[in-house]
């Protein structure tokens, strides 16, 4: 409707000469267009690269532990000493105050109350938090898309039932639900038929977080499925005798792709935050597995003497989530269909 709408073909059209035959014009796929626009956003790209860097660092945790810090994430050095700049310090002082950042290879970021190397735990914890974040996102996306497709396409009683179920999950504040399920499962793990998970498994928090976030994604996608189903190309497919499942996956699903692409980084961010909160409360990652959330909860009690115990994991959390959020926003802006003719600032 906007009078500044120009099709993408316009941008590529060669200038015709008088009397010349006009060539057939091909369009650009919206993805290539989005990719081009994304390339012009330095902040989003830097943020994306930063996130990747963090992921890589955390995956290299064992390397760091072995070659730089010379200690593992669970090893106590509570009664040891370390030499820094020629001075000998207690790793944990007699009154229980751990050493602060040494900015050297051992105890780069200091030690915690158990004498464990904070930097090492930070990387291992990051690995756990990121693993859970990605895993939870995958669970959320797969289930939410399936639910949205079935509910939105078939409507009727299938839709009613699924929507009520989504409403039920939606009724609990995410963290409370996570806490409830987490506490429940912490005591004994899961034993549902063939699925057996011990209580220390990282998969449990991933499962919980993935589950809790389903309505957040399923509801908007369901709305889109409902709108798409009314479109002509679906009718066309139906006249070709395509069955429901086929239409859902070959016609409707591809049209959801840009929405899905926008949700992925958002859900990774949300999952990481939720995991941190659950772990902080004790309903997420269980000790001795490190996680940024558990590190913060351990460190809060010592915050007056040793703020680094809270600041290090806290800062990592903020930077990780912020970088992926910035990248996600960049993707969202680049995919925005209304920006076909983006207004240039004067």
């Amino acid at each position, binding site marked *: 409707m906007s009078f500044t709408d120009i099709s993408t073909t316009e941008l590529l059209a060669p200038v015709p000469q008088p009397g010349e035959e006009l060539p057939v014009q091909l369009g650009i796929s919206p993805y290539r267009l989005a990719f081009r626009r994304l390339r012009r956003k330095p902040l989003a790209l830097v943020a994306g690269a930063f996130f990747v860097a963090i992921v890589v660092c955390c995956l290299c945790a064992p390397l760091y532990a072995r070659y730089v810090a010379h200690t593992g994430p669970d090893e106590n050095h509570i009664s040891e000493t370390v030499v820094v700049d020629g001075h000998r310090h207690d790793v944990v002082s007699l009154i229980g105050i751990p050493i602060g950042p040494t900015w050297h290879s051992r105890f780069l970021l200091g030690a915690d109350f158990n004498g464990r190397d904070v930097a090492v735990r930070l990387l291992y914890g990051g690995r756990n938090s990121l693993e859970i974040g990605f895993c939870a996102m995958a669970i959320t996306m797969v289930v939410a898309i399936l639910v949205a497709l079935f509910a939105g396409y078939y409507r009727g009683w299938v839709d009613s039932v699924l929507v009520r179920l989504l409403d039920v999950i939606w009724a609990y504040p995410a963290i409370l639900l996570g806490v409830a*399920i987490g506490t429940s499962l912490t005591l004994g793990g899961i034993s549902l038929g063939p699925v057996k998970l011990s209580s220390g498994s990282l998969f449990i928090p991933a499962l919980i977080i993935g589950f809790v976030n389903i309505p957040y994604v399923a509801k908007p996608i369901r709305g889109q499925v409902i709108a798409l189903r009314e479109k002509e190309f679906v009718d066309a497919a139906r006249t070709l005798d395509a069955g429901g499942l086929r239409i859902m996956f070959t016609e409707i699903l591809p049209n959801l792709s840009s929405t899905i692409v926008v949700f992925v980084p958002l859900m990774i961010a949300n999952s990481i935050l939720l995991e941190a909160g659950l772990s902080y409360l004790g309903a997420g990652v269980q000790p001795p597995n490190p996680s940024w*959330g558990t590190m*913060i909860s351990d460190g809060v009690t010592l915050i007056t003497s040793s703020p680094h115990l809270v600041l290090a994991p806290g800062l990592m959390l903020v930077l990780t989530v912020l970088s992926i959020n910035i990248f996600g926003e960049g993707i969202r802006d680049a995919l925005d269909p209304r920006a076909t003719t983006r207004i240039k600032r004067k």
Partner: protein
Amino acid sequence: MTRFVVRRSLQALIVLALVSVFTFLIFQVIPNGSPAARMAGRTASPAQIAAIARSWGFNRPIYIQYLHMMDKIFTGSVISYSQQINVLDQIKRGLPATISLAAGAGVIWLALGILIGLLSAIRPGRLLDNTLGFLALTSISAPVFVIGAVLLYALAYRTSVLPSGGYVPLTDNPWQWFEHMLLPWVSLSLPFIGFYSRVLRGNILDAKHEDYVRMARAKGLSGRRVLTRHVLRNSLIPIMALWGLDFAGVVGGGAILIESIFDLNGVGQYAAESIKTLDVPPIMVIVMYTAVLVVVVAALVDILYAYLDPRISLND
């Protein structure tokens, strides 16, 4: 409209019933191990466990268990065995703090969220919008308890400007009540402000492109009038809906993290401590009550929405 209200209320009732079943499933059915032992907590004797099993009907068929559980929850007779106190009483004791937190933060985040959203949307793409947008993104990206911990460290421990935690009832000492609530309010509000301002900004920018806004200008309305009469009205309606739900969530103990960091002894903190000791009954009750509250508020919000936006009641 009345048809819509009736229909929506019925939906809410169905969801409430399902919520109760779901809560039941979470706590009794899915996990491994003996429910009675779980309830009893870590330090129970076999005799206690047996007594609990009888009282809750764990040796009876599932639907009896469900009825027992619902009966106990809604008559307020759930007891925390590890602590030997009635859960509902304990919740009531924590309510003033939680409600103070929710009310204060709710007002702050709504007002500031709207204000910042408006400021961002007036001149989109300019420096102010970009800066506010970045700040908003940062506030959404930082976990609430990290914000709280940092603020606590900077303003209470390092410098003693504000108290470092605890709750003083309003009736005891209003000024101290305020002092103690200030940091929790700020910490809890920040992510919401960030989120709401972005949502409002998005709504306003979308509304600005709508044909009816263009038409309003074609009628001769000044920019300001168009903003207040058409754009804002359409943009704020979704915000109010969001606010209702978020507020209900916080009241129900969704601010569990903030209450823990600031030691407010509200409902949320009660839940947090129960997690630490793996005391199941309080968590069960709190979660149930919160869900009920959210479902009811959601229904009310939808009805209000339908009243404000006449397209809604026709679509369902």
